[in-house]
């Protein structure tokens, strides 16, 4: 077991290295000169050269890449002397447009993304699993069709469209909700909840749609299994049969999916955060892309990839605990 995990970790590090290299290369060759970006409005060629050397942009590709990598573990210093800027480890880069370390920027925005992800995840698990179960148990009935049609719609509806629709209906027309505001839970719990409700709903809708389809397939699959017949033949109560025998085999595979999706969201729900003005990692990404703040884009890309890769490992480990066939070697 330990060896398997270790091997997975090594592979993950490899993937992350590749992703960072790939991202770095793209920006190295395709992106406009970051020095010119930083130089901003009142720029001279001399000043550009200064910035280039300060940022190490005049170094060859591999040295720059190495600086970036080592910065993550040891931190790094830009420039020299009194004008030097230090970026403490783990340094994912330094944004010269905002004069902040990318790590700090991401950390500062993480709570919003986490709140968004946790709330949405709770909603979509509830709706997705509930809907999928209902649909599977009432297979072929009106309920099934209603849930599955809603799910198909959920998959087909772009979330920015849903966001606009909800905002128009619930806030502008019906005035059931106030405009979303950036308050913390402690400041005003009600307003906090009201402000997050729409983003949660919008984000959860698409995922719930997807999950209900998958849960339905899994449950129907499980219901057709021989062991379900055995359970019934034992004379168990129908709810017990469903709860104990159908649910666990149907939902265990969902864990894998959920882990990946949740990790993906921690890396920022780009569109939802942008549309609702939530200052999370996704918004940071969108803003940085608009400003072409290259170090931030690099940092976020890498973080998002790392989250997915780590989630992948965690999910695999969790899976072995949930499925005895993987956990216990056969005799």
């Amino acid at each position, binding site marked *: 077991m330990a060896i398997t995990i270790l091997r997975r970790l090594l592979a993950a590090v490899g993937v992350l290295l590749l992703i960072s290299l790939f991202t770095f290369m793209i920006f190295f060759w395709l992106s406009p000169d970051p020095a010119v970006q930083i130089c901003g409005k009142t720029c001279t060629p001399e000043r550009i050269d200064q910035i280039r050397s300060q940022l190490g942009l005049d170094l060859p590709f591999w040295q720059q890449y190495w600086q970036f990598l080592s910065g993550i573990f040891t931190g790094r210093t830009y420039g020299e002397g009194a004008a030097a800027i230090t970026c403490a480890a783990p340094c994912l880069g330094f944004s010269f447009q905002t004069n902040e370390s990318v790590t700090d920027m991401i950390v500062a925005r993480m709570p919003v993304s986490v709140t968004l992800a946790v709330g949405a995840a709770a909603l979509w698990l509830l709706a997705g699993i509930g809907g999928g179960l209902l649909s599977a148990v009432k297979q072929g009935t009106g309920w099934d069709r209603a849930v599955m049609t809603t799910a198909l719609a959920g998959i087909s509806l772009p979330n920015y469209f849903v966001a606009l629709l909800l905002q128009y209906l619930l806030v502008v027309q019906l005035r059931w909700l106030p405009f979303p505001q950036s308050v913390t839970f402690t400041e005003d719990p009600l307003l906090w909840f009201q402000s997050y409700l729409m983003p949660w709903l919008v984000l959860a809708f698409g995922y719930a749609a997807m999950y209900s389809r998958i849960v339905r397939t899994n449950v129907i699959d499980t219901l057709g299994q021989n*062991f379900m*017949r*055995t359970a019934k*033949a034992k*004379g*168990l109560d*129908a709810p017990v049969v469903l709860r104990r*025998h159908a649910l666990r085999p149907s939902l*265990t595979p969902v864990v894998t999916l959920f882990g990946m999706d949740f990790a993906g969201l921690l890396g920022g729900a780009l569109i939802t955060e942008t549309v609702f003005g939530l200052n999370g990692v996704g918004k940071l990404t969108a803003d940085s892309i608009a400003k072409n703040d290259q170090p931030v884009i690099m940092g976020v890309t890498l973080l998002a990839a790392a989250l997915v890769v780590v989630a992948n490992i965690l999910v695999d480990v969790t899976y072995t605990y949930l499925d005895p066939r993987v956990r216990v070697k056969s*005799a």
Partner: protein
Amino acid sequence: MSLTAPRTISIPVAGSTLLEVDHLTVTFPTSSGPVEVVKDASFRVESGDTLGIVGESGSGKSMTSLAIMGLLPRGGTATGSIRLNGHELLGRSDREMRRVRGDKVAMVFQDPLSSLNPYYTVGLQIEEAYRAHNGGSRRDARRVTIEALERVRIADASRRVDHYPHQFSGGMRQRIMIAMALCLEPDLLIADEPTTALDVTVQAQILELLADLQRETGTGMIFITHDLAVVSQVAQDVLVMKDGEQVEAGTAEQVFSNPRAAYTRALLAALPRIDDPFDELKGTSR
């Protein structure tokens, strides 16, 4: 392999009819109209006796047993009459049938691996069956479970009770299924091709085990198989089915020695005659 044993033991209880099935018809709706998968089947099972139902796959033999259990797949309807100890089973609510299942009629299925839930220990799966009908504490249930495992000759039962199905071999799994069925002391045991998925030596062990257990408990049994040779070893009465119809019914002796239906003759002709079962059968006749 003792073929006479069950017979002698079953005699004291014979005569009290355990199960009477009359004019049982099972229909399924399809896009091209309803299809009868079992047509007008009638048979009886005496306490302590074994009825063998023989037929190819799709002949309706499994549907017959599922109809008795009240577990027909979605859409299937059964008409006619199924009486257990004189009580009509057809038309009962699912709730009432649940008390019949396991408690009065238990079933052992063909594929022991897929018939056990891979996510739970075998112990838990037997215990839950026991507790569903007898209530009681988990401790009692566990004790009964271990006893049942011991009865089906699983070595080291008190340890193995906490193992998962995939940790057992095929034969062992079928023993577990049998233990699960027997721990409830049912009046009727339906064994639906219990040995088909097993290799020959294991198959023999399981048959022997079933015979021993039947002798101990006096349970009536329906043994479903496509294998006439097996039927000849276990059943007193035989029912042959083809395409949902009952083509032959009678005592094992009658059927094997003097088959009336052409289909039965064909089946018999197809039997391997490495060692002629009929000689043996004749030898053990009353």
